[in-house]
């Protein structure tokens, strides 16, 4: 009965915890709140409720084209990053080899290099060496590099919980490796792969750093937001932020449910 002996929660600890949650959610709650505020300055004072900013957003041609570009970039990035990430996760989880720590360091390296500097490096190569013009495809390259490590982590998480006895059972019953993979392994890790795809999609949609120098004359949603934010607080940005937050939380809750087991 030692396990039942849970220590009581001291009041100070509970208050601190509540304060941190407030700290984490206050800016988001305010953003959502101001998106419905009539005041065109996008901040205090509160002058009434309105849906005007959402309507204005729907008429914003620059926002709509940026969103379309973001979708194209994200939907191109997802299959590439998910495929590369899934294969790599198999390599890291299912095999043993000498330089495994080094390999995983290499795989996760793009996560620690600031995206905007990677973008700058891609720009410098294209401008000084290759002479290739910037386009959304140069942005896709950057997004694939940045998002693949996340896909690796998502699939690896699922692979770790995988009971390999299932594979050996199928093999003992006479299935060849291809059949084992196709009928047993793949269906069981599919939730992990879908979760990886959803995570890659969300990150790509939100990636600012590597996009900054690689997008050229085009614009993605974060680049649109950047242009708006540089002009100060705007009510339409609050509305866009609200939609973005609701959308990405919905996508990630699905990913979370898929990874849970």
């Amino acid at each position: 009965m030692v396990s039942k002996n849970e220590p009581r929660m001291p009041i100070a600890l509970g208050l601190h915890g509540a304060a941190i949650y407030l700290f984490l959610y206050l800016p988001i709650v305010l953003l959502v709140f101001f998106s419905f505020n009539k005041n065109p300055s996008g901040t205090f004072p509160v002058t009434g409720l309105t849906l005007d900013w959402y309507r204005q957003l729907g008429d914003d041609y620059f926002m709509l084209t940026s969103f379309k570009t973001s979708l194209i970039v994200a939907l191109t990035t997802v299959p590439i990053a998910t495929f590369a990430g899934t294969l790599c996760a198999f390599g890291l989880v299912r095999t043993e080899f000498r330089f495994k720590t080094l390999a995983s360091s290499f795989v996760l390296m793009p996560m620690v290099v600031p995206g905007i500097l990677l973008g700058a490096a891609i720009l410098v190569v294209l401008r000084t060496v290759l002479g290739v013009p910037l386009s959304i495809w140069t942005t896709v390259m950057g997004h694939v590099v940045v998002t693949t490590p996340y896909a690796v982590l998502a699939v690896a998480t699922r692979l770790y919980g995988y009971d390999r006895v299932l594979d050996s059972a199928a093999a003992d019953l006479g299935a060849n490796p291809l059949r084992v993979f196709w009928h047993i392994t793949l269906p069981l890790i599919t939730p992990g792969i879908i979760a990886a795809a959803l995570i890659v999609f969300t990150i790509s949609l939100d990636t600012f750093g590597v996009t900054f120098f690689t997008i050229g004359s085009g614009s993605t949603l974060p680049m649109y937001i950047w242009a708006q934010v540089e002009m100060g607080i705007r009510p339409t940005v609050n509305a866009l932020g609200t939609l973005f937050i609701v959308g990405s939380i919905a996508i990630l809750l699905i990913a979370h449910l898929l990874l849970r087991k």
Partner: protein
Amino acid sequence: MATIADRVNVAPERRAGIRLVPPLLAFLPITLIDFFFFVLPMLVMSIVSVLVIREFHITFQLTAENYLFFLKNPLYLKVLGKSLLMALATTVICIVLSFPFALFLTRLPRSIQKTMLVLVILPFWTSYLLRVYAWMTILGERGLINRGLMNLGIVESPIRLLLYNDYSVVLVAVYLYIPFSTLALYTNLERLDRSLIRAAMDLGARPIQVFLHVVLPLMLPGIFASFIFVFIPMLGEYVTPAIIGGAHGLMIVNVIVSQIQALRFGIGSAMVVVLVALILALVMVLRKSARLEKIYGF
């Protein structure tokens, strides 16, 4: 016994799955991607940084000018030093705030612990730019704090000091990165052997002694991991200093970006090489002590 264990644990990977995806093939796509779009650009950049560039075309004349530029302009070294300090301040504040918070999380009832943990990470997945931007509605001239202070009659006109300086950048950075240090310390606390603490107390150690000599050494992996997840990204932060810091709160990446934007590719490249080398060296040093495999699984 060993043979049964071997048959259950090792045989399956020999028989199924593994043969289908040999290690080399599994790493081929990611290696190609990282080589062409990551390693190669970084390599070319380090070569460009020591060559003379004329009209956007590299010449094969060697130069140290781009690196000497740093030494001739101590301002840049100053910004680098300031950025390191800001990253350190952010990390220390994150750890100090996260430690009791992580302790709070471990003491929650098991049934809601996972959900509360997801709620900590959730903001990370919503728009990064917009979360930084949202702070303008709190710290700005007509923001929440100024509004509150004026309504209470504490100040008559809005305080401008809340935005556009190093302190406001650190505050927003703490907000951005606290989920990471919390996750790192929580993972560490979950694995902590509580009987060691009880043993120390039974032997008569005072709480402060228990904390300094037992808890702190056991928490070192979580503290190192926090440095990787907070210090490293904060050192490369661009958006927060640009939006919240203004002209007075710039960090090193903002300076590098303005060099690239001014098409000074040589100097810009040299700065990127120095910063990326510094970041990779720090990660290498921290990685072993942080025992990241405990968090990632490999």
